[in-house]
């Protein structure tokens, strides 16, 4: 690794830190300034409420509260949940993160795999019905909301596999809508992951197709053909390798998209991941959890972006920071 690369990584890490600070403070200040809190529902009044607030440090000014949060966060302690009383947030969030990563990772593989495959085929068959079909599927991909796809999937499963029925509904339509245990098995994972990955795969298809069409015009593709390489080799080794550069550039936004989608998907399928936790926390005023999840996701995106930048240098040897 060159000096330049190290400097670059340093800058990126700095950006991640700045982003984390700005974002966590923003979210912290925003949610803590909201009227109402998690304890209202418990009918606490007067001294009892004051003592609970004091216990959580909620009676202090927001900057002080944030400072305390920050001190904890640096040591990996994101505080305690208001609602699930006494529950430490860090282990909770990490466990849920691992579930979300399993789902999101599967979705990312589907997205990139399917998207690139479709993109390459569409480009190779440019302006044929195959191309039109695949590009139309791509547009449908990023037009149909993931919850629609998920619902459709559930219904189809129920039609195709009426016997495969055990579900929270206890009725005849039966995709197992509740995640069994903490992690899902492949079968359980498949439908949510497809519903989640299909949306972004459309974008990958479109970028891959455009990149391939651009690359196959390049002189080095002509050279590769003039050498007498098999067309499969030309396509994969010479064209696709180069087409992966622009595809890599959307991996960062892709991760953001998948996180957004996972919030929906986890809620539909009852998957105990970060996205579900986030919605629960924000609707039940469990703001320490809200801030914690937000921070974790921001960190995740930062790391993913850094990873993508380093991936660039692997895919394209010309890129050096």
């Amino acid at each position, binding site marked *: 690794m060159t000096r330049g690369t190290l400097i670059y990584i340093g800058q990126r890490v700095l950006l991640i830190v700045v982003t984390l600070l700005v*974002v966590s403070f923003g979210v912290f200040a925003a949610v803590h300034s909201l009227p109402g809190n998690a304890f209202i529902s418990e009918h606490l009044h007067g001294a009892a409420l004051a003592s609970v607030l004091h216990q959580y440090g909620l009676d202090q000014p927001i900057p002080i509260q944030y400072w305390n949060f920050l001190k904890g966060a640096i040591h990996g302690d994101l505080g305690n949940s208001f609602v699930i009383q006494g529950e430490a947030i860090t282990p909770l969030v990490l466990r849920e993160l691992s579930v979300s990563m399993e789902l999101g990772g599967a979705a990312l593989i589907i997205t990139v795999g399917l998207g690139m495959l479709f993109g390459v085929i569409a480009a190779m068959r440019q302006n044929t019905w195959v191309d039109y079909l695949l590009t139309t599927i791509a547009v449908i991909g990023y037009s149909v909301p993931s919850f*629609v796809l998920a619902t459709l999937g559930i219904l189809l499963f129920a039609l195709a596999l009426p016997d495969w029925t055990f579900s929270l509904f206890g009725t005849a339509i039966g995709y197992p809508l509740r995640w069994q245990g903490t992690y899902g098995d492949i079968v359980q994972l498949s439908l949510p992951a497809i519903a989640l990955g299909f949306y972004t795969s459309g974008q990958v298809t479109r970028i891959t197709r455009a990149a391939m069409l651009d690359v196959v015009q390049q002189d080095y593709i002509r050279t590769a053909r003039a050498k007498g390489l098999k067309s499969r080799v030309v396509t994969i080794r010479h064209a696709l390798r180069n087409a992966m550069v622009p595809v890599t550039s959307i991996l960062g936004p892709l991760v953001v998209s998948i996180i957004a989608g996972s919030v929906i998907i986890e809620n539909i399928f009852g998957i105990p991941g970060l996205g579900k936790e986030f919605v629960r926390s924000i609707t039940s005023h469990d703001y320490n959890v809200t801030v914690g999840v*937000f921070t974790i996701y921001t960190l995740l995106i930062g790391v993913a972006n850094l990873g993508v930048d380093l991936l660039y240098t692997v895919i394209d040897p010309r890129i050096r920071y």
Partner: protein
Amino acid sequence: MATTITAPPTTVTEYAGGTLAREQVSLWRDGWRRLRRNKLALAAVVYLGLLVVVAVIAFFWTPYKPNAIGTCDTYAVPSGAHPFGCDELGRDSLSRLMVGTQVSLAEGVGTAIIVLVVGVTVGLIAGYFRGTVDAVISLIINIFYGIPALLVALVLVVVLGQGLLNIMIAISATIWMDMARLVRGQTLSLREREFIEAARASGAKSGKILFGHIFPNAMGPIIVQATFVIPIAILTGAFLSFLGLGVPPPQADWGGMASEGVAAIRYVTHIVTFPSIALSVTLLAFNFFGDGLRDAFDPRQKR
């Protein structure tokens, strides 16, 4: 009958000059022609036109009052009186769907307008003044790219409250960056061109140069980009509603209806079906239209 020629003969050079002068105009005209030839985009425009008509009609007339409870039985299946059936509270789905059109279109177009205003202003400023201003704006843009979009929107809706305008602001906060970056890039390249130099040399104010000269010249890509904001905004709005943080009840909207439909999926499927179809087709139409616009006006993307 051959007429006598009185006009001076046309020479090749004159002819060529005419072609050159027409080139600028024909760029736009070619674009429109390509767009008109794109059947899919055309169909999308027709559909979207109909959608606007439905939205307008829904202001004055719906088969039933959209929020009236008990117009028929809970989960009544589609029938002559209620073509799209009824929901859990016995509200007429068709009426609610019609009113939901207003919400989706408002979210889409409203957000696009906010994104346009914010993104164009920020992008113009960053690109034109460069230096520290640009560095700060670019940092802000990068920070926004580094945070989970939908979660930001969710927090903002909770903080600002579940009003339509607040929702649009919340969605805008997650997608303004692409527009700002696009305009910044366009501005950076345009500000070096002669006609901008000339305007500056003649003492025009920065504001005048930015909005009078640079903005109009960057119009094409900006419009295309704004078109793509609409479906993303509608989708995000539907996500918010689906999670219970969209427009407040009892206001009907597609995302919320779909959410109710999913909840009812073990009893009936029609409740989730119609809003899902409406959303999907509408988003599809906006995307086809946007693709059509881009293919027509961005020659690099020409198939």
